[in-house]
């Protein structure tokens, strides 16, 4: 059975979200909410209510980065300072905590930021090949509803788009 990806472009969020509500309500058999994604020029504030809560793993990357930065930062400094053992310290501690706290703090932030960036690139699936189904109009003022569906749902989905005043439909065969 053929698999399709179709995108309907709408002139506003209201109509686009009505399509999603209808899909939620089972108006297109065989289509689930997980098969629906949106494309928009801005993030709509109520998108979570429409599509359901879809968690972002980015904060986990951030926490990991911050902890790594803190640990690595302190150990890096301490290991560097340990090489001073052969040198006279003038009564000062080999590993001075006050100054190391300052530098560890900077390392915590640096690695927190770097891991957050990595988390974003991975979680948002950036750097992946752009699917053919895309419209520049999404960057301007139109809202796209993208559906992944099989042959059976293809025509009903297009009919649903049309019933909500879709401006344009684009499609591609996935497999």
């Amino acid at each position: 059975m053929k698999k399709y990806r179709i995108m309907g472009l709408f002139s506003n969020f209201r109509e686009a979200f009505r399509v999603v509500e209808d899909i939620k309500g089972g108006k297109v058999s065989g289509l689930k909410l997980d098969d629906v994604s949106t494309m928009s020029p801005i993030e709509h504030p109520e998108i979570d209510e429409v599509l359901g809560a879809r968690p972002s793993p980015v904060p986990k990357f951030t926490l990991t980065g911050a902890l790594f930065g803190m640990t690595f930062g302190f150990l890096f400094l301490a290991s560097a300072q340990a090489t001073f053992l052969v040198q006279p310290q003038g009564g000062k501690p080999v590993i001075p905590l006050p100054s190391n706290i300052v530098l560890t703090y900077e390392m915590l932030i640096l690695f927190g930021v770097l891991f957050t960036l990595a988390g974003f690139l991975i979680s948002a699936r950036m750097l992946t090949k752009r699917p053919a189904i895309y419209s520049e109009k999404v960057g301007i003022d139109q809202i796209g509803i993208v559906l992944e569906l099989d042959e059976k749902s293809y025509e009903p989905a297009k009919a649903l788009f049309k019933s909500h005043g879709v401006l344009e439909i684009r499609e591609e065969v996935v497999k």
Partner: protein
Amino acid sequence: MKDINEDIKWAQINADVLRSMETPRLGYWIAVATCVAMIACAVVAEIYQYKHGMGYGLLNWPHMWDIYIATFIFWIGMSHSGTLLSAILHIIHADWRKPIYRFAEAMTTFSLMTAGLFPIIHIGRLWNMYWVLPYVTDRGIWPNFRSPLVWDAFAISTYLTSSALFLYIGMIPDLAICRDNARGWRKKLYIALSLGWRGDDRQWRNFRRTYLLMACFLIPLAVSVHSIVSSDFAMSIMPGWHVTTFPPYFVAGALYSGCAAIITLFVLLRYFFRFEEYMTIAILEKTCKLTFAIAMAWTYLNLIEFASTWYGHDVASKEVLLQKFYGPYAPFFWMMMFCGSVVPFTLAIRKFRRHIPTMFVVSLLLNLGMWLERWMIVTPTLANAYHPIAWDTMWPGMVQWAIVFGSFGWFGLLFLVFVKIFPSVSMYEVKEMVYHRRGHAGKDTEEVLHRPVEGVRATTGRPGLEGA
């Protein structure tokens, strides 16, 4: 008065911002040539100083630091503007920041790139600059991690990395718009930089989280950076520098000069790029009020510093303070007080706040005051240290002035290149602002926004950015 016209169409926002990036006009090239000429002055001065020694830059005992370091602190301070507008105002949901935060973030990055040049210039032996980096040499010598100067290297490189990433991440959705409208080398550049952004819900969801988390990191980082810069002074025992209020005083001064610089660039961009629809008088007024509040905090901390020195009964510190009041540097000190504490009262007067030429002049005066502040921190102490034998009044020479002058050219050039290659107003954030403002005004958020705009191509919004 509204912060923005909520009836503006989304396609119009794209069109206006992309227009600002099109082929530059004569005025732009004149500005670029001026900046290049300023940089050339600095390069010649630096070569002269490099060949003949730091003495020719008038850096000699007891004036080892002087205006190079004063200017270094000035540029670090300037960098706090982006953090304030982007991070702090983002977290507290002050959406009036949206049309102006992008160039403030760019200022942050470029100020840091400018500031970073000064320690290199100041040490004289340029080829040894890498000694400050934390690595072990083949002689087994590591940098002294107890020194605030090494903390500076850590803090500033962290801040530069983080603020550059913050600027870049916040620009990705706009870079995708540029990608969809560009041709030639620009197209290739934007394809690479937009990282495949399509604006789907997964990308937006993770984008928002990332931006918020980075903002949360950037605020304490900015505070720590200028606190650490203040430690270069406060952790010494020099009279006039060993002051416990220096970290908050430096942070307040940094936010102050950053805000003043935002007003300057706000006026310039509004005028040259015809951004009247986005950089509105209402937003200028809010920026001015914020600047006024910070100016008063700075004035208070200044007075606290004087009072603590006066009542501290440290003879040498008191002497430095008195020398500032009526010594050879007194005219500059009082000019600093005038520019920093008196001039900002114009920001409290509505009539002046709404008059753009006045605000432009005021913003320049505020930053003059902030530069003088840094000079008055560094030089009077070196001129009046503990030993009378070391007392020496020093006036900067041509070499120093040329290098300081050139740093403004360097900053200006970076900024000019930025505004022609990258969108200086955030298109998606302004669209969000318009969308929400319509909702708050009780208007239908779904109407008007998505209508075609006359003269704008329906598919991509613009005829296209030429990059050939």
